[in-house]
């Protein structure tokens, strides 16, 4: 019996029972497609989160006032505004005394109601220094960013994030950036003080922890003088010269601030130093757990699909007992029979596997294209799903095939 004959027998047998073959294939399709789609959602989520953390700036260390809570508590609200233990003098000391700091920017942020032309919005007003642009990987869309001279001179100038700009000045769909081109030069009012708009930052995409598009930047000294009324800063952003010196910079900053604040017990520090890499590793481990969770749910459906195949093959063997008896009577050997049933099982899984991969990739791409969630198809999940389905076909097909082949032709022929 040649391989072509086996394939032909398989085709005849499977097409003779289209509904049942179809349902069995469906089980495998759902199993494989869900593995691929779910792993791609998990992977997409983790790479999305990672890139949005990266986009905050590279080799970044953030110092915030208030006691450290935990690494995961990093965010817009942890400690910010609640403590005033960090000052511009601390920032200056770090700049002058810690080695391997390539740039440093202090921020003074607060939530403010902002009005312009009768519209108003409530957003974060961030008092920044000129180096903030570099540290945060920001680029300008229109106009220019706050300069050091403006910081020193208490200038009442403001740079808008694109979301804040459209909230205040509306949109213009004819422009590539979607914003009216005459915003620079207009004035906005913060706490009843007029600030002149000198620039708009380019959009960074509003995903991740803090939305850098919905921001208004003003010089930090102006923020301290006009908005907060003290010399406290809410964040010091430090950019290390390379990833290798992050730990050294973090340790130096911690010991410098401890001594400046007169604290001997590091656990009682009134500030916290967060390393971007710590955050990244925390987030990656969380998203990895998520991926494993999703994949294991999907794996269960894959196994259920496999049991479906075994179930169908066993039913088939029972139902076709007389056919097996006949085939043996006219000269089929054990090997011919077991090969035929094995090929049937493997064909079902392969067909299911191919459709499942197509469906899984399609769902992943579709969900990604709809913008519901970022997905990233990893080829290892495709190979894994396909490998598992092939293994299921062989393993779950082998037992019924053996059972069929071992039947005694006399008993098989008499079977009712």
């Amino acid at each position, binding site marked *: 019996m040649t391989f072509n004959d086996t394939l032909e027998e398989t085709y005849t047998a499977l097409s*003779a029972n289209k509904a049942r073959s179809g349902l069995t294939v469906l089980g495998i399709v759902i199993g494989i497609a869900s593995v691929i789609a779910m792993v791609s959602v998990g992977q997409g989520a983790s790479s999305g989160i990672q890139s949005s953390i990266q986009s905050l700036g590279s080799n970044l260390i953030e110092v915030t006032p208030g006691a450290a809570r935990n690494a995961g508590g990093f965010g817009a609200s942890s400690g910010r505004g609640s403590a005033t233990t960090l000052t511009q003098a601390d920032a200056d000391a770090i700049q002058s005394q810690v080695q391997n700091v390539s740039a440093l920017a202090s921020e003074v942020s607060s939530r403010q109601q902002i009005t312009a032309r009768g519209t108003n919005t409530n957003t974060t007003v961030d008092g920044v220094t000129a180096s903030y642009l570099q540290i945060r990987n920001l680029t300008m869309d229109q106009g220019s960013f706050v300069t050091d001279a403006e910081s020193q001179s208490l200038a009442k100038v403001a740079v808008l994030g694109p979301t804040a700009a459209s909230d205040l000045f509306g949109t213009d769909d004819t422009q590539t950036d979607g914003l009216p081109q005459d915003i620079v030069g207009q004035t906005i009012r913060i706490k009843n003080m007029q600030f002149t708009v000198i620039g708009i930052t380019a959009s960074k995409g509003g995903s991740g922890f803090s939305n850098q598009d919905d921001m208004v930047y003003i010089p930090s000294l102006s923020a301290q003088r006009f908005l907060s009324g003290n010399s406290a800063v809410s964040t010091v952003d430090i950019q290390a010269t390379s990833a290798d010196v992050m730990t050294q910079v973090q340790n130096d900053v911690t010991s410098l601030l401890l001594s400046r604040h007169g604290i001997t017990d590091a656990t009682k520090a009134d500030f916290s130093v967060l390393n971007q890499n710590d955050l990244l590793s925390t987030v990656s481990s969380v998203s990895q757990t998520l991926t494993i969770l999703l994949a294991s749910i999907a794996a269960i459906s894959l196994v259920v699909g496999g049991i479906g195949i075994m179930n169908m093959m066993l039913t088939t063997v029972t139902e076709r007992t007389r056919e097996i008896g*006949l085939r043996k*009577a*006219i000269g089929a050997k054990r090997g011919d029979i077991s090969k035929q049933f094995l090929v049937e099982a493997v064909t079902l899984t392969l067909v299911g596997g191919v459709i499942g991969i197509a469906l899984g990739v399609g769902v992943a791409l579709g969900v990604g294209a709809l913008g519901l969630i970022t997905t990233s198809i990893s080829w290892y999940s495709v190979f894994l799903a396909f490998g598992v389905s092939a293994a299921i076909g062989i393993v779950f097909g082998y037992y019924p095939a053996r059972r069929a082949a071992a039947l005694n032709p006399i008993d098989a022929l008499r079977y009712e």
Partner: protein
Amino acid sequence: MIEVKNITKTYGVGDTAFQALRGVSFTIEDGEFIAIMGPSGSGKSTLMHILGCLDTPSSGTYQLDGKDVSQLSDEELADIRKDKIGFVFQSFNLLPRTTVLRNVMLPLVYAGVEAGERERRATVALAASGLDASHFFHKSNELSGGQIQRVAIARALVNNPTLILADEPTGNLDTKTGEIVLGTFQKLNEDHGRTIVLITHEPDIAEHAQRIITVRDGVIVSDSKRHQRRNARHAE
């Protein structure tokens, strides 16, 4: 040529052992048309299984074309069935939802005959069994009982066997269709010189053969050649 010498078959062991055949001997020459008769439980089915190489005897020898096949393994028996034996069953046992031609070609698939030759030989066998060529591509479930049994006969013929074994071939057919099928066997025997062994429990079916072996309680009680066999009406 078939030579059976002192064959016994015992099922089970110890107290529950049951001896289905208690020493059966006979010889069948090429070109004979034999009926093996006997009531149910007589051992005729066991005898047929052994003749058809579906089973091996507990003792005794069975020579098929000069080769002792009584103690072969399962795999060797499959080879003998493939090359030397054609089966016709009471319940036809065609593959359902499969064309007539494919059904007839099935033994050739296992015999490793190449595809073009299969179809040629299947067509010849179908013609010999008297099935009209217009039915070759019909599915087996679209045929009448008599037509189905002719397909089964063609399938038994297609590998050019030494022996055609028919186990109650008319049992599921009405008298008229049964006559047609018996006529087909007679024709194959007379015109093509096929050796045919027909197993039946009905005397008037057995009368279509040239020689009747009657089995009862595991032994042969009579073995008679008939000078005048009953002719099936070659209807159609």
